[in-house]
Structures are given as C-alpha cells and as structure tokens.
C-alpha cells in the first residue's frame, strides 16, 4: 500500500472529531461511552501512523515498535474503561431508572 502516512493522521483527526462531537452532544450514557471508544481508536490509529511513518522512512533499519506497544496498552485501557463505565451505568439505572446524563445534576443542585 502506497498511501502516505499523513492520510492516516488526517483520518485519525476526523474520527477523533466525530467522537468528540458525539461525546458533547449525546445525553445517553451508553452512547457517550461508545464515543469515547471512537476517540481511543483514533488515538490508536495515530500511534500506528507514526510508527509506519518511521518504519518506512528512507534509511530506516527496522520496524518502529513503540507505536504498536502503546496501541496495545490503549486497547487494554479501553477495555477497562468500558467495563467500569458500564458497571456505573447499571448502578445508575438501578437507582434512577434512567440512562440520561441530564438526570445527574446532584452536584449542581
């Protein structure tokens, strides 16, 4: 594949923007968590784009492995975040019978 790595970075930026938009606009907690997953995916993609950029540069000697290593860490953190977030959603639904973020204004009142 001869696509320049900058295009990967642009794709990552667009995906991050879409995820951030959903994070700010949606009020459903579960969809907000999904938007966080999209943003983490975009971060992963930019790690891999940077790794590819270095590995395929003229004069490079071997693969650049920092990017994939941190991408794996990010995947693990995403799984942890989803598990904790969804447990919180279940606890919220048990107490309030809703998953809307607008119901959570206890600290404001």
């Amino acid at each position, binding site marked *: 594949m001869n696509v320049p790595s900058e295009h990967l970075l642009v794709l990552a930026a667009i995906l991050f923007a879409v995820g951030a938009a959903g994070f700010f606009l949606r009020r459903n907690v579960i969809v907000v968590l999904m938007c966080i997953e999209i943003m983490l995916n975009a971060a992963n993609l930019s790690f891999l784009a940077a*790794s590819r950029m270095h590995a395929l540069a003229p004069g490079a000697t071997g693969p*650049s492995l920092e990017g994939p290593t941190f991408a794996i860490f990010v995947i*693990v953190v995403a799984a942890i975040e989803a598990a904790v977030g969804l447990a919180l959603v279940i606890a919220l639904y048990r107490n309030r019978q809703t998953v809307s973020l607008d119901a959570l204004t206890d600290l404001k009142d």
Partner: protein
Amino acid sequence: MADALFYVMAIGAVLASLGVVLAKNPMQCVLCLLASFFALATIYLLCGFQFLAAAQILVYAGAILVLFLFVIMLLNLGNPGTEDPTDVRMFSRANSAIMVVVAAALLFVTALAARRAGHMPIGRAMPEEGLDPIPGLASEMFGRYLLPFEAISVLLLATAVAVLVLAKRERRPGERQPAGGDAP
C-alpha cells in the same frame, strides 16, 4: 488496489462513526460501532499491523461490543419506545454552531500540520512480516515496557474488583439476610 481499499475503508469508518453519533436507537449505535471497528481493523491490516488488527477484532468486537450489547439488552434500551427524549435537542442552533467551529478549527490545524511537516516519502518496501512482528513486540513489552505492563495488569485486577463492587446489589440496612433455602 490496496490504496483504493484503504480509501473505501477510511470513508466507511468515518460514516460508521457518524452513525454512532447520529443514530437514535442504542442498538443501531452498537452496530455502527461494529462496522467502524471492522473498517479500522482492515486499515491496520493494509498498513502492515497484522497483530494489532487481530487484537482490534478480538478485544473490541469480541469483548467490548459484547459488553455494550449486554448492558443495552439487560436494561431493555433497544426498544423503539425507550428512545432517550433528551437527545432530541442535540442539534440546537448553539450546539451546531459550536461543533462546526470546532471541526473547522481541527481540520485547519491538521492541514497546517501536514503542510508544515512536509511530505514524508516512503523509502522502503513493506517487510514481509509486517510492521509489528510479535517477537519484537514481546521483547519491547517484557523489556523496556515491563513496568507499564505490570502496572496495567494491576489495573486490570483492580478493575475486576471494582466492577464487582459497583454492579453488586447493595442491601438496605433493615433488609434481612437471605436465608439459605428455608424461605417461608
């Protein structure tokens, strides 16, 4: 051929992510998220990150999405009647204006950075074993990054405990203990 597939998958990933943001029903959001993950895994594969593509499918599509589906079905949010009414004013004029400004700024910064950085030429052919050979990844993870690896394993353990505590049904003080089988 591979280039064309990359652009198709890139457009597909963006459209699927937009679907997550715009879909009314949480179940449709999950399905769009699944499409987005598969498109990204294809992109990883095209770029030469074979192990990462497999991990993306296994962890995201296999574990995280199943968690989301489990919660949505458990809370019975997939019905058309249980749509969240607060999302109706998602595209009020103020929200739309803010998002357009932020998106324009982000794209401007990205274009500027791409111009400033200049074009990085591709000087080598892709190695046969891809860009994330597993022996190399293993020696990184158990060599230079051993401390983060151990930290993240402790984090996983703490998460397992925390999720159990959070999701456990707490008993009110006056409630009697469940009797082990001698119910009246």
